[in-house]
């Protein structure tokens, strides 16, 4: 058991490309940290640096109280689950799981006991003498997990382990991973580009963009107080609407370009007169009456999801296109104009230049 600490970690490739720009984070013992971001944001690179599969160009990585920058992967006491599972195709499931233990000189009887125990936890008992090519995707995934668990490492590293599974199995395995991690209480770092996976699994999330850390926090913090427009758009589905707007001169309302406006919570005059990017989550809109400072939505398209209804449209001109998510079945048609209200606490203001949150 050990925590992981990254101090100003950087990665520069030999061709000069800087993949990671100074990441600082302290993952406490037993924590589940998710690295999330779009493809190419550096999340896998960062994970592979922790694993020892990529060199560290700058900064320091600690696992427990050891600096591991220059240690081989095997000396770091970690286990990794790969996206394509990376099972050894010429070995049975048993041998796949036992391989790491054998390499470390664990006695035969103990290997057998530990593999049996792991197989029991993962419900793989009947499959141990099969080769991976005879297993389904979900079973392979389980064997890959088993190979990690059986070693009882200090840290689990997951590199998009669910992305090769179909949607249904993915949800199932997601729950299983969460349960396992809670039971084993092993520090875990998990890479994904899927924000739902990130939100449901992580104790904390780190959102990466172009090798920079955009925000680090609990899922709810990220949802409720996104630090940048990037995080705002990345977390939540459908993503947050971002509109061009201006805070009125007295600071009481945010005005949209065509003159419509919403009342702000504090009205305390902060950012008065400032041009902003206004963020509102689709699920925070309300179309029920009321007159105070409303905007109007011109409906362009309606999607019925059963539990929810998604209404796509725009306010005023086309520039301010937005999506509204309402509970239940809402009857609306193309061309309708709906009054649109937002509770003041759900208005997020961002600097249009830097994308940073304005509080």
């Amino acid at each position: 058991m050990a925590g992981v600490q990254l101090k100003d970690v950087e990665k520069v490739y030999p061709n000069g490309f800087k993949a990671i720009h100074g990441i600082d984070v302290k993952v406490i013992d037993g924590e589940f940290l998710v690295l999330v971001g779009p493809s190419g944001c550096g999340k896998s690179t960062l994970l592979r640096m922790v694993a020892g599969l990529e060199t560290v160009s700058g900064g320091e990585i600690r696992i427990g109280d050891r600096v591991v920058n220059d240690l081989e992967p095997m000396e770091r006491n970690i286990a990794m689950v790969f996206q394509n599972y990376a099972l050894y195709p010429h070995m049975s499931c048993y041998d796949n799981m036992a391989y790491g233990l054998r390499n470390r000189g664990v006695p035969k009887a103990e290997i057998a006991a530990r593999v049996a125990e792991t197989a029991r936890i993962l419900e793989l008992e009947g499959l141990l003498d099969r080769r991976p090519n005879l297993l389904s995707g979900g079973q392979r995934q389980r064997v890959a997990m088993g190979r990690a668990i059986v070693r009882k490492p200090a840290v689990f590293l997951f590199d998009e382990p669910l992305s090769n599974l179909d949607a249904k199995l993915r949800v199932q395995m997601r729950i299983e991973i969460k349960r396992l991690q809670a039971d084993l209480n092993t520090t875990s770092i998990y890479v994904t580009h899927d924000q739902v996976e990130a939100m449901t699994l992580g104790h904390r999330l780190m959102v990466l963009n172009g090798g920079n850390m955009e925000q680090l926090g609990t899922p709810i913090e990220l949802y409720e107080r996104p630090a940048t427009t990037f995080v705002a758009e990345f977390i939540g589905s459908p993503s947050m609407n971002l509109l061009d707007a201006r805070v009125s001169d007295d600071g009481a309302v945010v005005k949209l370009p065509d003159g419509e406006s919403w009342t702000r919570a504090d009205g305390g005059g902060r950012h008065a007169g400032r041009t902003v990017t206004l963020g509102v989550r689709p699920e925070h809109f309300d179309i029920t009456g009321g007159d105070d400072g409303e905007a109007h939505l011109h409906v362009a398209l309606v999607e019925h999801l059963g539990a929810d209804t998604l209404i796509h449209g725009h306010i005023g001109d086309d520039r301010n296109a937005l999506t509204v998510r309402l509970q239940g079945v809402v009857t609306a048609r193309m061309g309708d104009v709906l009054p649109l209200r937002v509770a003041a606490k759900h208005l997020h203001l961002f600097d249009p230049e830097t994308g940073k949150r304005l509080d």
Partner: protein
Amino acid sequence: MNKRVVFRHRWLPYALLAPQLFITLIFFVWPASQALYQSLLIEDAFGLASEFVWFDNFIDLFADEHYLASFRTTIIFSVSVAGLSMSLSLLLAVMADRVIHGAMVYKTLLIWPYAVAPAVAGVLWFFMFNPTVGINAYVLHLLGYDWNHYLNGTDALILVIIAASWNLISYNFLFFLAGLQSIPRSLIEAAAIDGASPVKRFWTIVFPLLSPTTFFLLVVNSVFAFFNTFGIIHATTEGGPLQSTTILVYKVFNDGFIGLDLGGSAAQSVVLMAIVIALTVFQFRYIERKVEY
């Protein structure tokens, strides 16, 4: 559902097959049957008379200690050639797989020997090992060994083994490199995390996964050593000294065209034919099935 193509015209399929059948018949079936027929005859050296003797040629053949010695030489030769060239090319492929800078140049250079004809390859090594002027023979002499493939049968055999192996290395290298590159990187990484040293990774992960390639090359190399090395031998040792490098295919030539024992030579060809058929069947039988992925 009938997925087969159905030709409306009755003779069209035969017409389309005809060129291939024609070539096979003229260039393969006819000569092979001639060899079969010839192997049952004894002919005088001038080709004026021949006598049908059933299997006497084969009986003589397997009673002939020179032929049995040639068999032994062939086995030593082909096992050594396959072993030497495959292990060297695997070593080169593993190293080339790790090269990052100038990988293309390195790989291209390694492929060059494949463009050299076996006979030329033989002559190149013949010169380098020439007891009088060869650089390798000179170096060996400095090391205290008197190399002479004109007199020493073992030296001569080693010489043709080296030349044949060198000629095969590029071919093997290409296949091994392709095999190595088709092994997913993450498997090696997983093994590294699982605590296997680079050497152990190679023997427990990489080598087993290369086994289909290795098996294929083993068959191809054996066939090459058995049949395609005529040029190397003919250009260098001519089977000598004292038959020490007379492999089966060279003996066919020697007995048939130099010794003019056409019946005996044909019988030897038939034996070789049987061997190549056996190797081919072996390959078709197992090579598809042994694939690991």
